[in-house]
């Protein structure tokens, strides 16, 4: 087995992981499945692009601004459009689909339907045992994992994280214990959107910016979430790597459309054989 295949698989896995963690966190806390997740991903990349080219910022401020902007936007949207009606599942899902539609159109209107180049900030390669590894990809993998680790620390070790976890477990009881569930929701939405935007920047830097990526990444995030099981947050990480490595290996042997078809097949298979997913537990108590 080729070393480069495994390395690439790890890289793809980390990309899948950061692309999905926001989605699973969003759903687990709020009970709303954010179909617009893919849009948030590429929005992070696009806003950074604007920051770099039109506002002439350097990478870090541009990235920071775009992450905060996406986080704020989604939080406000959630606050006014979703929070009040989150118990009506059908309506909530439709609203996120509408958001997906609108954001996609907005991006096409503002940036054009074709791909945009995203500057590579860490050019060059490193030679390890005879194979080339792109430094940019290494940076992306490591920074994604660090971001996820930071999020883990935030959720597990801080007071806010405790409040969020309480809300996830049982919202009503948490509320009766004095935890403002709505506020916890807003925190979670902000955190998940922010890390999603960050993931988008990473993805853009190793691929490119394009509206087509939105549907693809959306599908990937959905697939990983389902494989992991909708009730678990951290389960998406192993699931992401499994899928990532499988995808890399499969793509090298079957190529092209494989990725597209395989994602949907995985979703259907998992839901038919084991709807709970790998790590899912009982359903969310809203």
């Amino acid at each position, binding site marked *: 087995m080729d070393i480069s295949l495994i390395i690439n698989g790890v890289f793809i896995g980390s990309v899948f992981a950061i692309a999905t963690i926001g989605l699973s966190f969003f759903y687990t806390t709020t009970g709303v*499945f954010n179909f617009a997740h893919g849009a948030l991903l590429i929005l992070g990349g696009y806003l950074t692009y604007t920051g770099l080219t039109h506002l002439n910022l350097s990478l870090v401020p541009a990235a920071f601004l775009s992450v905060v902007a996406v986080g704020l936007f989604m939080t406000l949207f959630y606050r006014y*459009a979703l929070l*009040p*009606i989150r118990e009506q*599942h*059908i*309506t909530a*899902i*439709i*609203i996120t*689909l*509408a*958001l*997906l*539609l*609108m954001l996609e*159109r*907005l991006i*096409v*209107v503002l940036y054009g339907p074709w791909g945009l180049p995203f500057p590579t900030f860490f050019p060059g390669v490193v030679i390890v045992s005879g194979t080339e590894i792109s430094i940019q990809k290494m940076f992306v993998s490591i920074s994604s994992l660090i971001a996820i680790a930071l999020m883990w620390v935030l959720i597990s070790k801080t007071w806010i994280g405790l409040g969020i976890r309480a809300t996830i477990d049982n919202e009503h009881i948490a509320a009766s214990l004095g935890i403002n569930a709505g506020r916890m929701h807003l925190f979670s939405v902000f955190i998940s959107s922010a890390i999603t935007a960050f993931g988008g920047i990473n993805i853009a830097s190793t691929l490119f910016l394009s509206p087509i990526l939105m*549907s693809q990444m959306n*599908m990937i995030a*959905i697939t990983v979430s*389902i494989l992991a099981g*909708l009730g678990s947050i951290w389960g998406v990480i192993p699931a992401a790597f499994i899928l990532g490595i499988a995808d890399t290996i499969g793509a090298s042997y079957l190529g092209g*459309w494989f990725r*597209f*078809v395989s*994602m*949907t*097949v995985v*979703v*259907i298979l998992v*839901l*038919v054989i084991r*709807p709970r997913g790998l790590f899912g537990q009982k359903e969310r108590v809203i």
Partner: protein
Amino acid sequence: MKKMWNHSVLILAILILLIYAVYPVVTGDSYLIRVFILIHIFAILAASMDIIVGYTGQLTAGHTAIWGWGAFFGAWSIVYLNIPPVLAIIIGGVVGALLGLGIGILCLRFRYLLLTLVTFAILILSYALARQFASITGGELGIHGIPVLSTNRIIVFYISLFVLIATIVSLKLIGRSEIGMRMRAIKDNEEGAKVLGVDVVKYKVMASVIGSFFAGVAGGLYTTYMGSVGASIFFLDHLLRLILMWGIGGGGTIIGPALGAYVVILLGEYLRFIEEYRLILLGIALIVILRVFPAGVYGVLEKILSYPKRLRGDHK
């Protein structure tokens, strides 16, 4: 609903319908006629989706997939089996019903979210399959030159209008019947319905079959009108627009989503000058409507038309 359909409203509705029906004969073929034909097709789709989503509460993202397969099978039956276009529509419906049966049974084990995800995956899988087996589906570009219902668009207008009316009438009758009542019970509270003895399995699958039948019919209509069908029929765009129509029109009333088709497509045409912003505006409209007027356009109409009665004080 009883508040609304008193005699004067009924007469008004029939009058509007007559004017609408006579319009094409008076004005002849025009761009508007073509728009209306498309509206008819989508109205059938929206109304049929309503019996699944609005009545039993199964939010399926696969409705356009069934529509697409109905279109494809209709096309294949014409091209390979030399079946006349009119029958092809029925074949589309039958295929739709079969697919609805399969999907309905499959989705019994899922509630809201997983149901939507599975049907979503099925839609995307359909697209991938259609692209993959380009030899029989014509791939992205599709099959062309399918014999149409008629080269005279006015005839197609009437045929599609007829099918639309038939669809709405049948669905409305089902909705008003005991079957419809049970379906709505399932949507409101599935466990409660079970306790009251409603056979949830039977009615969920029934709704799926009925709705999918009409979706397949719409598919057959589509391909015999356009003369072509391709993998692009499975695009997410169609699904999202369908959901727009359903939501804006007012779910759960059959007529509402059909009206929604008129609203969305006509607005889309009038707003053509702001081409790219159209969908953004419609999306915002949908969100606002869902939050402020959940009953949609139909609900607003209801309120307006029932004012006289309520002013007179004899509303129950």
